[in-house]
């Protein structure tokens, strides 16, 4: 239902143009949890902001389209794009601690999308806000509180309630659980999963935390340096990973039961301001070849929709033999 085609997003900076996202082609299906994994600078937040139409002032879409149910939301006029935000697609930010206005009561903030989109009057909006808060496990004690009076987990639930209140078809959750403790984080993940089943919404779940994403997502896209590395179902990524970066991610996860020690991926994350030619993972890749420097990111498609963006798999040949 979300078809992203050939998306390239650029930031203008004093040092020149930065290509924050390039060659992004992916279809996100209805009612799935689609995970996006990447370290900082991978372009995962840029992707979220592009879908929301909230790129910072110095960012713009150079090419490509994002179709939601067939309509390209990048081509909407500002006023129409505003109608999509919060209503069709809503966002749960990283650092939800700060997503709430310190001067307004919780219930007013949760009810706000209803009033912004003129769905109903204030009284009804408040009633629905309380209903949604309750659904999120926040009882009447919290409704009239100010953000600073609530715990981090409670604030995060209020933010999710706000994102839910318009019954959107898509929720983008960008690092929703950073800065929360492990238990609160687990509770939150359960809430998101239940919501997704109950309300039949599509969730785009974005995180740097590979194990967390692999626990949540039906399908996963791995980004590296603004470009895709691998896209596939949960099973395909976890047990049939092809890309060296994906394999590195899997090996770097400490498994309590496993005997093998976790291995970190050597090297520094890519400098997006000055990326290497060809495959961006090349400088850190154990299996890199000279020809990786001219890789053009044409994917190798394996069984159905498992895509690997690696020179070794290009054209179906095993690159190692050359």
């Amino acid at each position, binding site marked *: 239902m979300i078809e992203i085609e050939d998306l390239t997003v650029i930031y203008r900076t004093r040092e020149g143009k930065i290509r924050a996202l390039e060659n992004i082609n992916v279809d996100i299906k209805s009612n799935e949890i689609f995970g996006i994994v990447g370290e900082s600078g991978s372009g995962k937040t840029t992707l979220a902001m592009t879908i929301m139409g909230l790129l910072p002032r110095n960012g713009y879409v150079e090419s490509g389209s994002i179709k939601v149910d067939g309509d390209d939301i990048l081509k909407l006029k500002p006023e129409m794009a505003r109608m999509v*935000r919060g209503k069709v697609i809503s966002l749960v*930010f990283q650092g939800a601690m700060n997503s709430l206005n310190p001067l307004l009561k919780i219930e007013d903030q949760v009810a*706000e999308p209803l009033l912004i989109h003129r769905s109903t009057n204030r009284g009804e909006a408040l009633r629905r806000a309380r209903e949604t808060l309750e659904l999120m496990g926040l009882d009447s004690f919290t409704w009239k509180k100010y953000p600073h*009076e609530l715990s981090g987990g409670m604030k995060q639930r209020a933010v999710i309630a706000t994102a839910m209140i318009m019954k959107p078809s898509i929720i983008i959750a960008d690092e929703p659980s950073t800065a929360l403790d492990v238990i609160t984080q687990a509770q939150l993940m359960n809430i998101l999963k239940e919501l997704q089943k109950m309300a039949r919404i599509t969730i785009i779940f974005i995180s740097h935390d590979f194990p967390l994403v692999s626990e949540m997502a039906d399908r996963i896209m791995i980004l590296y340096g603004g470009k895709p590395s691998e896209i596939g179902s949960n099973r395909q990524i976890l047990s049939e990973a092809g890309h060296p970066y994906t394999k590195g991610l899997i090996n770097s996860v400490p498994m309590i039961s496993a005997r093998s020690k976790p291995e970190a991926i050597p090297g520094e994350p890519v400098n997006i301001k000055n990326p290497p030619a060809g495959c961006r993972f090349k400088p850190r890749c154990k299996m890199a070849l000279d020809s990786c420097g001219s890789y053009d990111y044409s994917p190798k498609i394996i069984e159905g929709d498992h895509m690997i963006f690696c020179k070794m798999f290009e054209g179906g040949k095993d690159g190692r033999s050359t």
Partner: protein
Amino acid sequence: MNEFQKYLSKRVLFAIVSVLVIISFDFFLFRLMPGNPILIDYRSPALTRQQIEALSKQFGLNLPIWEQYVLFMKNTFEGNFGISIFYKQSVSSVLFPALYNSLILLLPATIIAIFLGIFTGKFAAWRRGSASDGVVTGTSMAIYSIPTFWLGGIFILIAIKTHAFPVSGMYVTGAVYSSVFAQLSDLLDHLVLPLATLTLVLFGQFTIIMRNSLIDVLQEDYINFAKSKGASDRYILNKHAVPNAELPMISIIAVNLGLTVGGAILTEVVFSWPGIGFLIYSAINARDYPILQAAFVIIAIVIVLANIIADILYSYLDPRIRYQ
């Protein structure tokens, strides 16, 4: 006592201590200066023998300095500031009408400047980095750099050339008014130029303060979150950004009150507006030290009080302080 009350009582305590320190400063400043100007003043032949004796007794001019200090404190709290050498009447009977006249000029100027400043600050902050932001910010900085006493002079020059507005005093000298309205309209006529001068100077300052507070706030996550709810720019600005930017603005304005008073004094001198600033100016030339001494204390107390009001207003508007 909750946190909020603790906070407030701490501020009030600081205010009281400040006032005591200011009064002490005031006392020693004038007594310890070369020649002890107050003593010289109170032996001035401008006063009658009776007045000198009364002052001697009241301020203990022949007593050791510490006893004079205690008497001075006591007299100050009773509103007794001695006798003006120039006006030959009690300082308070000269000072308080002047303070009232000052407020007639200062309050409207501050209020108008704040409203205009919020308006243009909002305009510039929303378009930050654009050409119109550059123009507004540049102009505000320029206005902020204009010497008050020079701007007033330019206004006077223009007003005299065009016979537009009276350039001196509060009323036409010796005028007799047929009605309250006639008197009021004369006052407003005289108010135009000093009000314009002071408002303009303050306006530049407030625009910059508002713009910078807003730019700070506009980076906050809750602004982005409001955008993701589908809110319009105008809605975000008015409902989320401005209320949050007004909080720091309140404290900055309160802290800068000393500067505001400085601007008011210069404006009063330029336009011979019979306020406390003009009184200070005349007192310097007349070596009327009792007036200077009292004016300093009164202005300082007014500023300390205004700061307390700003503190209370701030904590009332900010739930993070109100509900702790």
